């Protein structure tokens, strides 16, 4: 498994009361300069994919292609701000494996505890470690007023990932 594959980012978007689905996300992203083709939207070498939709179309899982970490670093804030045009909140998940998991665990002082909650830049962050599969998940619920804090945390995580690469 390559390093690129060992770090991935998932965004679980919750729409306001009404149905949304990929069509809604794609049209919102298109308004913000993204180009959509099928289940993918691209901008500045970053690609967002519709991974899964809930049956009621009120929730959607997006994944980011992690091929260009330098671009991912820059576009995060722009992307979530676009998503907040149609979403109530976004759950952000970083999935890190192997050497990335070890490095980020060190950074956030995570020991062998399976699950730990921390407040980072004002965000309630859940860090879950699965030692037997060498996996580290970092997740938090992002609301519109916390985008700045989330961008800071995002930069810290991705910079560490770029360092390991």
């Amino acid at each position, binding site marked *: 498994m390559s390093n690129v594959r060992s770090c991935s980012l998932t965004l679980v978007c919750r729409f306001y009361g009404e149905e949304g689905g990929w069509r809604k996300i794609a049209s919102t992203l298109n308004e913000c300069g993204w180009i959509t083709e099928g289940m993918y939207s691209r901008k500045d070498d970053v690609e967002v994919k*519709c*991974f899964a939709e809930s049956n009621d179309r009120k929730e959607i899982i997006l994944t980011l292609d992690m091929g260009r970490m330098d671009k991912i670093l820059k576009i995060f804030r722009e992307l979530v701000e676009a998503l907040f045009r149609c979403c109530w909140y976004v759950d952000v998940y970083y999935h890190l494996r192997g050497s990335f998991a070890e490095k980020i665990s060190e950074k956030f002082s995570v020991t062998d505890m399976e699950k730990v909650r921390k407040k980072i830049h004002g965000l309630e962050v859940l860090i879950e470690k699965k030692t037997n599969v060498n996996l580290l998940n970092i997740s938090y619920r992002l609301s519109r007023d916390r985008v700045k804090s989330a961008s800071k945390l995002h930069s810290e995580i991705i910079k560490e990932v770029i360092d390991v690469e």
Partner: protein
Amino acid sequence: MLSEEYKKMNVFGIDYGTSDFKYGPISIGEVPEVVENRGYLIDGNSLMAKIMGVGREIVVGKDLPLYLEAREDLAERLIYPMRNGIIEKNDRKAWLIIRELTKYALESFAPSDEEFKGFYVVASLAVIAPRYMYEELFKIFGELNIERMLVRAATIIPQPLAVAIAHKTPTCVVVESGHGNTQVCPISMYPIRNAVIALNRGGSSANILTAEILKDCGYGDLAKEEGLVRKVKEQIGLLPRKLDEAIEYAKKNIDKVRVEVKIPGTRIKIDLGEQSWTRFLIGEYVFNPNHEIFNSYFKRGMPRPSDVKIGDTYFYGMTDLAESIIESVEKCSVELQPHLYSKIILSGGNFNWRTSPTLEGIAVTSDRKLELMMKEKGVENVKVTVTRDPTYSVWRGCIVYGYAVPYDFKWRWEKMEGWVNYA
């Protein structure tokens, strides 16, 4: 919190592939964990096993190589339960290994906190898997809960349907080619089961040919190790646009096709030299083993992919890939056929063929190859797509399916959908 929210957080996908077993929960990202779909039965009478304190009967997963004994009966004890995608009903050893692998996968990710009440497991089997395999697997999920609640609910979907779900394509033909077999499955919302064609050919067939090529090039000692042969195949195998043209080109331009492969962690280097043109045979064999050039290998003892019957399913050995797709589509309604040809999805590790800019027009990708083959057989308006990361698309389909199916949707045998509940 046993609700839709709980289910969405605890979907767990398992792809019972013929060679690799892919598993993991929704929270793992886009790439599952992978171990070989095999198990090793420890000899209970082995003195060394007793001395070493090996207290279990079956070993599966990443530690398995540590337990392999250098014994003549290794082949009997090292079992690949799903070589053809089907397990015989009474094959006790194979089912024991499937049970152990399933337990291994679920326990790897089951949280220890009290909030955890079991996963919503979406398992995927070959489309040709008979009903008793579904029943046996549901039984295993239930049994695993005796010690600890691991499975809250479970469902099983055919692998080609999982691929179609991952690509959100309700009408298509999915060609799933794994290590042991190839399944051609037209889908129109549900798999069209009476149109499914199974081929007794997969990645292992290309491995066998690669081993023969290695022998011919003086690497007979290496050709005995299947794992190494597989790595070499992945590094050197090429898929020709047209085999005759590619061979002619390669013989005239050896420097363009010659490659040296170094096996990581060893001193082994492989160079096919003057025989580098044989790189094109490896890819061609997967798509069409009928070319006369393969006869020389068959005559020298390489087994010809044969037609076999396993359970109630025929697996065809020599039918070329385009022909099998046409045969399959022509079993569907005439009205549906153009729609099926316009969305052919190739999935599985066996479609991962490399190309290089220096071999443009000579070596092609799987989608391009199949489009050409279909055109030669007179089928127009064909659109073939290779899934991104074809190795993982079944597992991803499992996750997408589990996320979408409502938690209270009960399993129905007549439709083969919904959750079997273990609460």
